[in-house]
């Protein structure tokens, strides 16, 4: 902890004084933090606000909830207000309903008497509180777990297939000499330049003909082999000395065994990078699942998020809560594996 603290408060100026470069660099870094974390933090805060609070203008940073009270004769809890002006000044009343500029209110102690109050005269009693029902509703009203499972299944299976297929292709392209090897590599790398949207229609037709529409496999299979992955792994595998493979051949290892026992373990840094990238790609993928999956029960989280946005209304509170839950796995992946990303990319693509 002490180390982190001293790192975070390090200055160029001596004796704890701030050099002008310290002001500039800390200012710059702080701005970066704000730009990057600001929206995420706002999202997190908003996901705990109820619908009314989200719509409120001007917006407030912290989520507030209005205090409510159970009043005899009313089914739902009523919102509490302090009356600050007019006839009932100084009293604390519960609102039954609001009609135009006038609110119908009731004193919790005298539930039978209805009072009419000018809405300008009341002031809501609020406190900081979390609208957790945004989250619980996801599980109760929407089949969040189903979407989550779909997304997880697609991500895990697609990543496993991607790693398998790409590493085998990369092994072939990096460690075997054969006619057409370079042409093959050029085609693979060249396909990086074709945007997905261009091949969307043919890809859709192929997927349809193979009968994979509206199934999770239709999302998984077409995107399994990625040129980026093949290229990334190939570049890394080129750095594994051929002598090690020769040694394994002298040790009577089959080519499959060389791949499985020598190449794969030695390529772990690159494979980790690809795994992380693949998880992010699959998890965040929107366009292709949107095209392939049309039935609600096959929706991924991203599609489910999209479906919250109706033509007429958008249920922002649930949408934001679900967005937070959707972000969490990716954030965890980054948090725990970021050192692999840095070292892996440094030792593969960047060189």
């Amino acid at each position, binding site marked *: 902890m002490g180390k982190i603290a001293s790192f975070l408060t390090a200055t160029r100026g001596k004796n704890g004084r701030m050099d002008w470069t310290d002001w500039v660099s800390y200012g710059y870094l702080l701005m970066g933090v704000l730009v990057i974390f600001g929206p995420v933090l706002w999202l997190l805060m908003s996901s705990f606000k109820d619908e009314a609070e989200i719509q409120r203008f001007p917006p407030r940073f912290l989520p507030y909830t209005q205090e409510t009270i159970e009043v005899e004769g009313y089914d739902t809890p009523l919102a509490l207000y302090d009356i600050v002006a007019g006839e009932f000044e100084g009293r604390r009343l519960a609102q039954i309903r609001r009609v135009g500029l006038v609110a119908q209110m009731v004193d919790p102690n005298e539930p039978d008497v209805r009072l009419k109050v000018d809405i300008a005269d009341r002031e809501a009693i609020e406190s900081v509180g979390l609208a957790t029902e945004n989250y619980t509703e996801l599980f109760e009203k929407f089949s969040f777990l189903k979407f989550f499972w779909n997304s997880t299944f697609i991500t895990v299976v697609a990543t496993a297939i991607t790693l398998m297929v790409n590493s085998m292709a990369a092994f072939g392209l990096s460690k075997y000499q054969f006619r057409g090897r370079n042409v093959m590599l050029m085609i693979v790398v060249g396909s990086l330049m074709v945007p997905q949207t261009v091949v969307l229609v043919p890809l859709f037709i192929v997927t349809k003909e193979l009968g994979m529409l509206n199934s999770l496999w239709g999302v998984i299979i077409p995107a399994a082999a990625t040129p980026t992955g093949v290229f990334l792994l190939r570049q890394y595998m080129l750095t594994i000395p051929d002598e090690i493979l020769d*040694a394994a051949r002298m*040790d009577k*290892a089959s080519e499959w065994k060389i791949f499985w*026992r020598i190449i794969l*373990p*030695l390529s772990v840094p690159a494979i980790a990078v690809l795994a992380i990238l693949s998880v992010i790609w699959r998890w965040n993928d929107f366009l292709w699942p949107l095209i392939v999956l049309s039935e609600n029960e096959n929706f991924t989280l991203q599609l489910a998020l999209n479906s919250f946005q109706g033509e007429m209304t958008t249920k922002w509170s649930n949408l934001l809560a679900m967005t937070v839950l959707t972000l969490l796995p990716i954030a965890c992946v980054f948090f725990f594996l970021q050192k692999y990303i840095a070292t892996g990319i440094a030792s593969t693509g960047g060189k």
Partner: protein
Amino acid sequence: MAGVGLRGVRKSYGAVEVIKGIDLEIAHGEFCVFVGPSGCGKSTLLRMISGLEPITGGDIVIEGEIVNNIAAADRGLAMVFQSYALYPHMTVRQNLSFGLENVGTAKGDIAAKVDAVSKMLQINELLDRRPKDLSGGQRQRVAIGRAVVREPRVFLFDEPLSNLDAELRVDMRGEIGALHKRLGNTMIYVTHDQVEAMTMADKIAVLRSGELEQFGTPLELFNNPTNTFVAGFIGSPKMNFIKGHVDHADRAMLVLATGEKVALPATGFDQKPGQNVTLGIRPNDLQPAPSASLSMVVRSVEQLGTDSYLYGGLEDGTAITIHSPGQTQVTPGEKIHVGAAAASMHLFDTESGNTLRIS
């Protein structure tokens, strides 16, 4: 009898021929060293024997069986690589047992063999470490251990000592020699270092640009080199070469480029008057003597205490090295006379470089 035979073995990469037909018979149990300057094809030849490199022509015979089309794994050989090529992600134990696992050896047998070999090579303390935690010498031992544990018919070494420091190299040289005595297997060893070749080999094959220059025991090569290349390559420091021609008047005399005359050691070869020849004298055969016929200017002197080396040149600039035992009084800049016994001289044809037999 795991002898290895090469019969007219060739290798080309496209139009470039790198091994130009080599014939060689290595008897069972022999320690054979392939030596030559870098790029001479010695490592390629070794890889061809191992099966890692396909051959373009000729036959490779191991134990009387032509193995041209047998995969490297099935030739029953083991190879120690220049870079050691240990599996970096495996412990020493796993490195040693990997080959045995691949041939389906029982777990108990593997453990026993790994144990025995690691004790023999004194790496039993290191079994649970990974290669990156070992020193160069230790890695070398593990690499050798990995070869030994599989009990191959023939061992192949590809410049195994070139990454070690000088002291360790001398130690490991001795150990590999001892290993050969203990195991009695055929070993083929590639090096560019003629000292390694001389000290370790039963037989040396000297290679130059894909061709076999000479094959024989170390002393055969030293005493009777077939040409200037072998003569210059074997022996340290290098043999001195002095150009000259056979005297027109007296075929028994040699006129050197400097104009000095030297009596030919013998006239047993079919020499012609005026024929260009090269005289070869080893540095330790050339000694300062006041009455000797060659005069040289000493440029630098190395005093090693027990030995001294004089470097200098003849009048026409031909470089001369003298290795004399003991300490010398000669100082740089001095002009001295040197000579050699006739019996220690080598005579080569200047054009072809081949030895002219002196009988």
